[in-house]
Each structure stands twice: as C-alpha cells, then as structure tokens.
C-alpha cells in the first residue's frame, strides 16, 4: 500500500507539471524538431495548411517522397549542381524544412555536426550553396492520406568530406 501511495504521489506530481507554465514547458517544443515561423529569416508568403498539425515525412509510411525518388535527388546534388566547400568542411550538414500541403518548401533550418557528432558550423559558402540548391528542389510530393493533404517536416543530410559532397541522406 505504501508503495502504491508513493508511486501515485510521484505520478501526480509529474503530471501536474504540465498544468502550469513552468520553466520546463519551454524547454521542449510541442514536438521534437518543430520549426516555428521566424520573421527574421522565414518567407512570410510561405503558408501552411495547418500550423497545429505538421506531420513528419515518415508518418505517411512511404519514406522520402520526391518525384523521381532518391535517384532524382542524387542526380541533382551530385551531378547537376556540383557543390563543394572549404577543405575543413567535414561532417554532416542537415537542412530541416517544411513541405507544405501544396508541395512547396520553407522554414529551412541548418544543423551541422562534425565526425564526432558535435555541433559545428560549416563554411558560409558551402552552407549557402546547399541552402540555395535545396530551396530550388521542386519535386516534393504533397503529403496525402485518405484524400486529405498535410504539411510535413522533411530533412536532407549532406555527408561532406574535405569540402566534397559524398552522399545525400536519408
């Protein structure tokens, strides 16, 4: 009985955290990876169908959805618009963004890590080239399920070794 009361008290205490605007409420976004509109960097003309319900690309159970599938993305980044950076640009540069219910993209965010997975910034030149090229991708498939369309988060990770683009993931 004592054990039950202890666990009950702990669970009540923990659940009640969510009812007040405590500091921890602001430590996490509503969902890991959420990107909120930032007027300083985001295009105000880029609209979402439902700000409250932006899915993840894998929620549709179809993997990455792009016209021409992964070969089209590889062809674009590795052949059509060859991209290179500085000699110390080694690691993984991830661009996370939203594909809206019309298949348009916006709200790009840059996340970089080195080979040891510590956060790092890549050269401004490489970052801007990858951002520009990714913004120009126009084959994203609209997230659709059961006749309804949804906004969703997508990311592309660029594996880079000494300024050379090796692979595009996922």
């Amino acid at each position: 009985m004592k054990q039950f009361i202890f666990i009950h008290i702990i669970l009540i205490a923990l659940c009640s955290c969510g009812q007040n605007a405590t500091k921890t409420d602001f430590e996490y976004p509503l969902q890991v990876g959420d990107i909120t509109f930032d007027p300083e960097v985001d295009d105000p003309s880029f609209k979402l169908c439902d700000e409250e319900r932006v899915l993840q690309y894998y929620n549709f159970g179809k993997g990455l959805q792009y016209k021409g599938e992964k070969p089209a993305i590889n062809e674009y980044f590795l052949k059509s618009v060859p991209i290179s950076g500085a000699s110390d640009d080694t690691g993984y540069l991830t661009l996370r963004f939203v594909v809206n219910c019309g298949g348009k993209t916006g709200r790009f965010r840059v996340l970089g890590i080195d080979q040891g997975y510590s956060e790092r910034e890549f050269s401004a030149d490489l970052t801007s080239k990858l951002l520009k090229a990714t913004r120009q991708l126009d084959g994203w498939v609209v997230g659709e399920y059961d006749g309804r369309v949804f906004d969703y988060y997508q990311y592309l990770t660029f594996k880079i070794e000494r300024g050379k683009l090796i692979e595009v993931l996922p």
Partner: protein
Amino acid sequence: MRLILIVAALSIPVYAISQPNCEIYKSSNEPCYTACLLSIRATGPQGSRQSQKDFDAAIELCPSFDYAYFEKSVPYLKRGEFATWKKLIDKAVELNPIAHLGYRGWCKYQFLRDYRGSLMDLEKLESVMGDDIGYSMNGDYHLEIVKALCYKGIGDRQKAIDIIESQLSKPEYSPMPYDYLHLGIIKMEVGDVGGAIELLNKSIQYSEYLPDNYYYLGLLYKKQGMIAKSKSNLEKARAYYQKGYKRFDPYTHPMDQVFIADIERELQDFD
C-alpha cells in the same frame, strides 16, 4: 481516425529495444519502478513535449535507467537532430553497452553512412559478445552483415566478402533476405562476374520478387554480352518494381537499393 492510427503506429519506435519488464524493480527499487512505468507511458506519444518531460522525470528518479535515455533519443534520430540523438544514446550505451552498442552502430550506418563509427561500435560489441552480435533493428540484417557493408563503404571489399562468406558458412545461421544480394553486388564490384551471377540467382531463392536481384543480373549479363538474358532480367525487375515489390525503410534508404529510374535507364540501351 485511420491517419491518427498510422501516425501513431509509425511514432512507436520501429527501432525499439524490447520494452523493459518493470516488475523486476517493483519490490526492490520503487523509484526505478516508477521511472520504468513513466518511460513506457512516454514511449507512445514519441517526440511530444510531455513524452520528453516524462523521460526526464524517469531519469531523475532512476539515473541508471538506460531505457529512458534510449527512448528519449529516438525522435531526434528520426528527425535529423543527430547531435542531440548522439548525446542521449551515448548515455544509454555508457549505462548498458551490451543492450545499446549494436543499435547505435546500426543507426550510424543506416542514418549517416558513418561506416567507421559503426564499425567501432559493432567491433566493440563483438569483443564482448563474440560474433553473436544480434540483428539490425529493422530486422533486415545480422549485424555481422552490417559490419561487412561498412567495410565495403570504406573500400575494403575483400574484407566485406570474407565477413559475409564466413557468416553464411556458419551452420547455425539462417541467411537473411538480402545477404546473398549484397555479396553478389560486392563480387560484381570486384569483377567476379561468374560468382556474382551465381550469388544473385541464389538470392532469388530467398527473395523471389525483389527487383534488385534481377536488375543486377541484368547488368551482369549485359556486361557479358548476353543481351536477351540481360533484357529479360531487367524487364522482370521493372515488372516487380511496378507491382510494388521493393526494398523499403520508412526512414532511410537501404544500401544499393534499386529504383525504377535505374531500371529504365538500363532498358533504354535496348531501344
């Protein structure tokens, strides 16, 4: 409602280490028992604020509870926040290396093609466990085969061949669906055309409808000048692909995966 179900299903970690049995803590460690219950509750709404806060609470109650660190890390991995993922999964590995090294090694390979990082984890696990290091979390591979694919990734194809052949020769090992496919592709890459054809035909015995088998056979027969055989295999690859038989991972792409564009490009040579 159906969408909610599919989203919920995909939010439940596919890459899940088995759920812990909280009952083992019940009589001996109340804080860890509560942490365990909290973590299981938090696993459902993966990636939500409440879920992450529940994992924090669990960790505070039971700092040695590796499962909470592991589960907390998963949404960061799936959503491309690899720095945060790594900090959390490192903690899980530190607390329970046998449970999490294989998973971390697999994720480094599958999500980032970090071949050297993956090899470090898998070989460390092997040093503790012997060569029975388990399977990839998506169930496609024995981790020995993943090790081989990492060696291929860093250019050591002979070592990759040796590892796969050694694994396949073990009497207690049941081959997985793509073992012979990968071995056939690596043999093709080192120029052993006859060996590759033999292995890809064997691969068909394990995954009869997989277009990849027929695509690579088509390439090999083309190389040998056997045009009719090449064409028929590529056409078979296209037919199976169009029927929806293809390798699939909801989060990433498998190594050497074949797509319809690859097949069509090869078939154009016969036009």
